[in-house]
């Protein structure tokens, strides 16, 4: 068993022992060859479970399948239900209502799927999704998800670190940013037949953000392949940023010298920036970001700086005026 521990996590950030022991018991139940890792201050906030191949986690667990709902005890925060995660979505390609994506994405075909890796890198290429994923070991990680609209969830994603892909693509010295592009397919994406946003949806990260250990390329949730409404078959997750950075149904990843012009920034630069880091001290021009409604809870809770991942990401923004670089 390997416990990986990124250098930037101080020992104080590691899980307290009771939780740790519990997790051991849990992991022992779930599978052999599984690694757990605490990734946040004040107890265990993110769980990493390395899980072998594309198969479901059930196959790892043998007769005792992993119950994702049970991850509550390890996280200290309740994992949202599969229903909550898959019926309350922002995915404007399928409509602007929260239930539109789950209701309108039934016709979307996430296979076959091609992903292009382009731009300033030594190993560009265009891959069938299966080939694109083949070199990577998928793992389950439980992350908070904080939407810019002031609601949040806790989601057990399945994916692999974007850093691994970046390493494989081998960016050249000119590469300063990574740009992601969503597929354009208006025949299966009714929202793309309207002008509510500019299509295709574009997102981007600075190269150091892309290679941060927290950043994931995600293919599944709750141990299953991503449903269409959650961004099948491939999406981005950056848990310390507002949810709109988590671009869905990705077909192109491009290494750029210039900062990509992400869709919401283009739509309304006064309200949405490139960085979109979760920050309770910098309000959206129209609403407070100080608190959030966790889906399934009644009272709002305080929003945490960088969504609770400050120890892993704050160093990347040292010296930056976060009120200006929204």
């Amino acid at each position, binding site marked *: 068993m390997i416990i990986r521990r990124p250098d930037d996590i101080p020992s104080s950030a590691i899980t307290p022992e009771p939780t740790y022991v519990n997790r051991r018991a849990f992991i022992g139940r779930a599978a052999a060859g599984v690694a757990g890792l605490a990734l946040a201050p004040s107890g265990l906030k993110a769980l990493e479970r390395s899980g072998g191949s594309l198969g479901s986690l059930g196959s790892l667990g043998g007769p005792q399948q992993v119950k994702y709902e049970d991850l509550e005890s390890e996280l200290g925060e309740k994992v949202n239900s599969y229903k909550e995660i898959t019926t*309350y979505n922002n995915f404007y390609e399928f409509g*602007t209502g929260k239930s539109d994506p789950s209701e309108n994405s039934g016709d979307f075909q996430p296979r076959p799927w091609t992903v292009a890796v382009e731009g300033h890198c030594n190993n560009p290429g265009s891959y069938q999704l299966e080939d694109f994923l083949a070199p990577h070991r998928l793992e389950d990680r439980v992350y908070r998800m904080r939407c810019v609209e002031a609601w949040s969830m806790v989601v057990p994603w399945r994916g692999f670190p974007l850093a691994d892909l970046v390493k494989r693509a081998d960016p050249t010295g000119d590469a300063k940013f990574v740009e992601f592009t969503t597929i354009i397919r208006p025949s299966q994406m009714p929202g793309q037949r*309207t002008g509510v*946003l500019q299509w295709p949806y574009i997102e981007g990260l600075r190269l150091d953000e892309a290679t941060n250990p927290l950043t994931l390329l995600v293919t599944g949730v709750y141990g299953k392949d991503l449903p269409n409404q959650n961004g099948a078959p491939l999406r981005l997750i950056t848990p310390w940023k507002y949810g709109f950075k988590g671009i869905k149904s990705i077909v192109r990843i491009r290494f750029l010298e210039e900062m990509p012009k992400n869709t919401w920034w283009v*739509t309304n630069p006064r309200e949405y920036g490139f960085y979109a880091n979760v920050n309770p001290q910098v309000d959206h021009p*129209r609403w*407070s970001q100080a608190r959030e*409604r966790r889906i399934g809870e*009644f*009272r709002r809770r305080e929003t945490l700086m960088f969504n609770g991942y400050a120890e892993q990401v704050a160093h990347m923004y040292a010296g930056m005026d976060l009120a200006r670089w929204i």
Partner: protein
Amino acid sequence: MDTKRVVLGLKVVLWLGALAPFAWMVAGFFLDWLGVNPIEKLTHVSGMTTLVLLLVTLAVTPARRLTGWNPVIQLRRPLGLFAFFYAFLHFSVWMVLDLGFDLQWVAEDIAERPYITVGFTAFVLLIPLAVTSTRGWIRRLRKRWTRLHALVYVSTALGCIHYYWLVKSDVRLPLLLAGIYVALMGVRAARWLERRIRATATAG
């Protein structure tokens, strides 16, 4: 068919139609069809119903002039009062369920968030109109009653702005409702202009 029966029929339709969203919300609350963020759903449905009912209320007078059928005016008060009922519900859901009756936060939101400032103002402006909607107040206020109730124009305009300001990017529906408001006010402006011109002509 006599007028009384037609008006009665229309009132039945009005009550059923106006109570339908409330029934939907109550049933949805117990039968769990409000989705995974029920507070947000209740806020949206009550807010949308308020705005639609205000616009229907504002359509009564133009409809009366257009058709020449005066009894339709009897629908105006119940429509306006239902609009106020939903505005009150919308406000209550926001203050009690969404903000958990945290008055400091309520005050902060009203002061600092322009879309809440205008929404709150729109609601407050409706209160005196609901209070003075009775026969007694109409009699007591006479001409001033008409002037006071012109506040509904301001309140509805603020309601349209409130809705337009709160959406993230899809402004189609807010614009449609604002367009209906502008059209309804345009009818009134045209009539006012016409009367002025006629008055000037007579005076000249």
